[in-house]
């Protein structure tokens, strides 16, 4: 849908521009699409603000850490490992692939 929009020659309007923000930030717009998006921004303070808000949202999300979560309980995992070693051979192999 967006590609079709960018292929057409008409100017991008705000309602379309807000749908292009992620493609723009991800760098997945074509060169022509990027140019048209940026030329809309240049004439539209509201969409410029919108883009700034999307950037701020991403940045704020990136600052969220889990300081309210308990850290690893090391002994627990050493136990887990030793139990697994002890059980090895009796357990069927999992097929988790990577």
């Amino acid at each position: 849908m967006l590609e079709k929009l960018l292929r057409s020659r008409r100017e991008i309007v705000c309602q379309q521009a807000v749908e292009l923000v992620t493609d723009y930030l991800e760098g997945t717009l074509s060169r022509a699409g990027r140019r048209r998006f940026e030329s809309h921004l240049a004439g539209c303070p509201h969409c410029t603000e919108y883009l700034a808000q999307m950037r701020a949202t991403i940045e704020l999300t990136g600052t969220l850490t889990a300081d309210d979560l308990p850290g690893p309980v090391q002994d627990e995992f050493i136990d887990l490992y030793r139990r697994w070693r002890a059980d090895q051979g009796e357990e069927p192999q999992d097929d988790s692939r990577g």
Partner: protein
Amino acid sequence: MDQDPDAELLGRLRAGDEQAFVMLVRRHHDAMLRLACGYVPSVAVAEEVVQDTWLGVLRGIGGFEGRSSVRTWLFRILVNRARTTGARERRSVAVGDPEPAVDPSRFDDTGHWAAPPERWVEEADARLDAAKLAGRLRSAIDELPDRQREVVTLRDIEGLSSEEVCSVLEISEGNQRVLLHRGRSRLRQSLETEFGGT
């Protein structure tokens, strides 16, 4: 993935090195716990999911072929287990269904802003209580439809690349981008609703 920082540890773990296991756990535990918390009702259950994941890792270590990074592999096992365990109500929105980034009523008939975005970014920097902002954002993330929450958490909190997210969640690049777009758009709207025009 020539420079996977975990590859060496994984090799040692394969050779039966207990310390390598502890180091891998230390490196990834917090992120895995955060991720698991998005699927299950309590931290206690999330911890069980993480433990169960590590057990799965130990059992499946022979099958890891290094086609993805170790982290991607760990997260994929975790997500599969957390989804199975997850008692939370599924709130899926199909990727094919339209979901505008901004409520269409905020545009006029020509598609231009009728109710432009209310400013909040400067406020967030200057005046807003960081804890309050983080709290609001956390609940907004929690309220996202499942698939959007998965993608936003992995991309924007844990810092995975789009390729890694596709691999962890086993989704296409295009769907990853749509989910990311919708999730981020919803979060922006929540912040505007909460803090805009102050």
